[in-house]
Structures are given as structure tokens and as C-alpha cells.
């Protein structure tokens, strides 16, 4: 659900998840209080959603940030692991030095 909040905003208090499978002709109603959001699928296709219900439906269905933003998040994750690895080397090097001295 955190991804939904991140992409669609805070969950409205009156939000109820609707099962659309029973109604193949369902049409999403626009929410004038909701700021339109742009979502992307893995192939770079884009869609604008105009209500929280619609946004939540698409996000849970796999739509999300633009591929470039996803790519950046992925690279940031890699950067994170690189830094952690560097820190492990830094501290273990010091630890070994101290151990050898003793």
C-alpha cells in the first residue's frame, strides 16, 4: 500500500476498494479534488488518472513511475550497496589493523 500512497497520495477516509471484475463496463468517475497523475507501465506507455480509485487500481495492477525514474531508483539502490560495501571494507580494515597490533 505504501507504493499507492507514494504515487496517488494519502488514502481518502471514505475509500473503498471496488471489485471491477464483476462489471466489465465500469467507467471511472473523475474526482475534481484529485490532482491528475501520470503513470507508466514497463514498456513506457502512459496514462493519466483522475481519481484516487482509478490511481489505486492502476498502481496495484503494476503501473508506476516512468521507466527513467524506475531506472534511477534502481541505480540509487546500487549506489547504496556500493557505499555499504565500501564502509564494510573501511571498518573491517581498521578492525584487522587493530587486531594485528594487539
Amino acid at each position: 500500500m505504501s507504493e499507492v500512497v507514494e504515487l496517488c497520495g494519502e488514502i481518502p477516509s471514505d475509500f473503498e476498494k471496488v471489485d471491477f471484475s464483476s462489471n466489465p463496463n465500469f467507467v471511472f468517475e473523475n474526482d475534481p479534488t484529485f490532482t491528475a497523475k501520470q503513470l507508466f507501465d514497463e514498456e513506457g506507455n502512459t496514462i493519466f488518472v483522475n481519481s484516487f480509485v482509478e490511481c489505486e487500481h492502476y498502481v496495484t495492477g503494476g503501473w508506476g513511475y516512468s521507466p527513467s525514474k524506475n531506472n534511477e531508483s534502481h541505480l540509487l539502490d546500487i549506489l547504496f550497496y556500493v557505499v555499504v560495501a565500501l564502509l564494510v571494507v573501511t571498518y573491517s580494515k581498521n578492525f584487522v589493523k587493530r587486531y594485528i597490533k594487539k
Partner: protein
Amino acid sequence: MLKKDYFVYLLIVLILFLPWFNSDSDQINFIPEISQEENPFYEINPCKISLFEFFNANKKSLFQDHYFFRPNNDSPINCFGRIAGISVQQKNLETQFIVSVGVNSLVNLLLQGSLWLLIISFVKKRNLVKKSNFLFHEIAIVSTTYLLTYSIYAQQRFYGTNIYLLDLSKTSSYVLIFLIFLFLTKNLIEVYIARSSKLINMVPFIFLLSGIFSGSNLVLFSFIFLYSGIQALFEKKYNKKIVSTYLVLSFWWLINSNGSFYFNPGKFRGFTNSVYEFNANLYWIVFFLLIVLGVLRELQLCLKYFNLQEFSTYFSISSAAILLTGLIGSNFPSINFLVTYYLGLQRNVVELINPFVFDEFGVKISWRGISPSSETIGEFFGLCLLINLFSILQKSKLDKFNYIGVLSAGIGLYFSDNRTSIFIVFFIISFFFLKANNQVIHIVKKISKKIKIGFLASALVIVYIFLQTDTYKFYSESLLGNSLLYQYDSVFSSYLKLLITSYEEKNLLYYVFGFFSAVGYLLNRAEMWGIFFARYNPTTLELIVGSGPLTLGQLYGEIKIEELSSFLLPHSSLLSYIVYFGLLPTLYGLYKLFSVMKNSKSNIMFLSVSTYIILNIIKNDSLNYFPVFLLYGYLLIIFYKFTFTTERI
């Protein structure tokens, strides 16, 4: 040991070259040479071509002066080292290409920081300085890291436009930043401590390797002093009265942090507050205190390892390197970009190719090389000449480094056209020359008391007559005249109002400020200082105790003045520090410095250096640059404690 060195060399080569080969041009068959017609290719292919591929397709860009390479810090990580965009502009008959090279602020921290750490690691270890308590050491490292991370949080307005896609309103975003800082701080401190006794003599290199992270308001070398400042607090090695007074003032500065005024750090990056707000003010208050305590602690620990000859040698080498790097960088746009990035400069290297050039009025155009300002680098070259003079006097002979230093600094000083520095250096050298010539000293000593009094009385009469002339009246009103020229509509700053009243009433301030104004006019600062006073809008308490250290946002944001052709800084460290600390602490600081000078009459090196520094900082923003602040702090304390008799070769 040798294998380790090879590994370090390999790492440095990789850091220097690898990023600029990063490319995504697999599906591009041909990269055209850039022209006004071919610019769309680069517009529709952002972040595809590597910098190396661009150089390969545009060989002229390596050396022609109408190409300008600029880092775009707000690029995605995968765009690092690639061409993020190109804009074309026409300047008279010349078509200029501004090439934006993608870099990423977070990667910059890691990449630039690692390179600088590797470079420092080449300095031979001495391990002479006693290590501190292990627990305090680790706590100080983590505290420094926390403080640095807090600086990002406190200045979100600046970093929001410099860090790509990292949501700074989320706490989780700071985990990565904290870890990067921890890696840098931990390694830097370890590397530094083992070499601190050697590095004290290498301080002049900070003018070459400034260590400012691209896209950040941080200097790598400040981490050392933040750490050391925290250690000083643990060890209680500080002047309790001064620190207590500072804390009381801090309380007032924080209470007074009303409003929000953004200040683009520009060339002051690493040593100025980017936004006048509570959190940012708090960070810079703590930063300044720790830096001062850190500098004092480091000098206390390492002063005994100071060696004038070694210091002079490094001053000479750095002076020659600065001059050469500036000359090469200004002639080759490609090198200009790489030098700016890898040396962590405040500004790109000057693009003025010919340092001998004069303008249409026959006035020399000042050349700043790799420095952010021509006056600042002029001060550096002037100091290099002075230090070489002291070195030659100490050993009574010249070595090859003295030749290198005197030659490069002499040329550099001429290029920078810093006439104040030229004048003071000339005066000091003449003084030492006369002092060395016993006959002249003998004559001076022989002059009777009556003649001395006669000279003094004549001088006073001449000054008095001059003060009555219209010329002096014009000089003394020049600052107010300029302030009124730039004052906007009916908006008057509080200080300008005060000045107008004093000129109407002809009270004490009229005479004091009139003298200051005349000095400003003679130093060619009437316009700059006039603009400053048109802006300066302190409350009474702000005038007395300032608005907080390294904070110019309030000055530049509070009062609207007439449009200026370019952004202009105060052009006086004295005025900047009055904004930071107010009249009372600034004047007290000056008074203490003059007292120390008065009590050190026999220490001619200290007197020369301190006079040189005081005269220069009055008319230049120097003390707002971290390298200058550090070097001047070091020089004042070193030469106060150091005399020819304390060290023999």
C-alpha cells in the same frame, strides 16, 4: 607497498577517465559535428553521447574558445559523463556552444571525495601526532557525519535543485547521504591524522585542490576541522569565555531567524549559508564554531612540525601549479571542465585566453586563473612572494624552489592586477631591504627627535588641510551618493536612512562614515560599498551583534534595490563579517588583532603577514572563501608563534 601504490594509481586513472566514456549510443550510427544546424541532434539525444564521443566528433571543442563545458549536477546517475544538452548563443559575430555535461551530485560526493582521498594518501605517513581516545574519535566521526547530513536537510532549497529525484522531504532519503558522508569522513580523518604533521606545511595546496563537491555547498577539507572541533569540545580545549559568548549570540541569531531568504552560494560554495532560515542558520552557527575550534586544535597539535623552508617550497610549487593550470585551462575548454571538476573549484577556470590583455581604456583586465576571483589569487601570489622572502632571509641563500616561487608568483601577481597586494609586497620587501642595509638604519636612528616631531606635525597639518578641501568632501560623500543611486523607489534600508539623517545633522557618524567613504573611494570601492549600504537593513541589535555566521541571505533578500547588470558581492570581508557578527564582535576582533600586533613589534614576519592580510580583507571578499579563511587563519597563528629563533635549519 609497491603493489598498493599501483592499485592506487589504477584507481585514480579509472576515476579520471572512466566516467567520461559512459555512453548509450548503440543505436546511433553517426554523431555529427555540432553547428547551429546540427544542434537538434544533440537536443533529441540527451544523455546518449559520452563526453569522450563528443570530443571525438568535435575535435575543435578541445581547444577552441567558443565551446563552454558546464557540469549539470541535476542529471540522473545513468547520464553521468554524457552530454545532457547543448545550447547555442550568438555573441557579436561568434557562435558559442554551451555544452552541458551530465553529472550527479550524489555520485560526485563519492567520486570526487575518493579521488581527493587517494591524492592525500600519497603524502608520506609520519604518525607523529598523538592519537586521541578511540571512543571520542569514533563519536566525533559519527557526529561530523550527522552534521554534514543535517546540512543537506537544512538547505533543501539549494539541494532540491541539485540532487536528481531524491525526495529530501523523506527521512529515508538521508540514509544514503549519511552513509556516503560516513565513508568519506572516516577515511579522510584516518588518512589525515597519520599525515597531519606533514600536511601543516602543505596548506597552500588548498588553493590548487579546493575540494568543493560539484553541486554541493560543502568542502571536503572542512570535514577535518569539524571533526577536530568536536574533539576540542570533548577535550575541553577551548576558550570558555569566547565559546560562552558565542553560544549566547547563537541563541539570539536563532531567535532572530525570521523569514526565508535564499542566497545562491555561487563562488562562495562550501562556506556560505544558502538560505536564511532557522535550520540552515543553526547548521552554519555550529559549522563556524567547530571550524574555528578545529583550526585552533590542529595548530596546537601540529605547530611544532611547522617548517618554514618546507612551507615555502610547497607555497612555490602550488603557486607554479596554479599559474600553469590556469593558463592551460583557460586555453583548452575541455581541460577547463575537467580541471574545474577534479580540483573542486568554486568556479570554472577563467576563459580569458590572454592574461596580458588591456581594455579599450588602457586598463589591464585582471586574470583569475583557477581562482574564483582575481583579487583573491593576487593575494595568494603576494603571500607566496612574502613567504619566499622569509625563507631566503632565514637560510641566507636561494634554492630552485625560491626561483620557481618568485617567478610564478611575480607573473601571477601581474596577471591578477591586484594593485593593493603589489603595493604592500613592494613596501614590505623594501622595508626588509632597508633593514638589511645597516647604513640606512643607522641614518634613520640618527635622525633627531626634533626632526621626527617636525615630520609628524607637518603630516598632521597636511591631513587637516586636505580634510577641509572640496576633494575630501566629494570622497566622503561618494558612498552615500552611490547608495542613493541604487536605492529603489521609496524603499530605504535602515542603514541608508541612518546615513541620510547623519549627513543632514552632521553628527559623529557623518565624520566617521565620511572618512570610511573617502577610504572606499580611494580603494575604488565607492560603488560596491554604496550598493552594500543600499541593501544593509539591520535592526539595532543586528547592527550590534549581527545576523549569524556566513549568512548573506538576509542582506540580499530583505531590501529591493535597483537592477544591477550582474550579481555583486560586498567586496569587503570586513563588511561581510559585520553582517555576520555585528559591529561589536568584529571591532573587538580587530582590536585584539591590533593589540597582538602591538605586542609583537619585534616579530616582523607576523607584522608583515598580518598587515598584508588586514589591508587585503578590507577591500576584498577573501574571508568568504574557505581556502582563504583557512590559509589566513594558519598564517596568523603560525607567524605569531613562530620566529627565526624558534627554528634553525
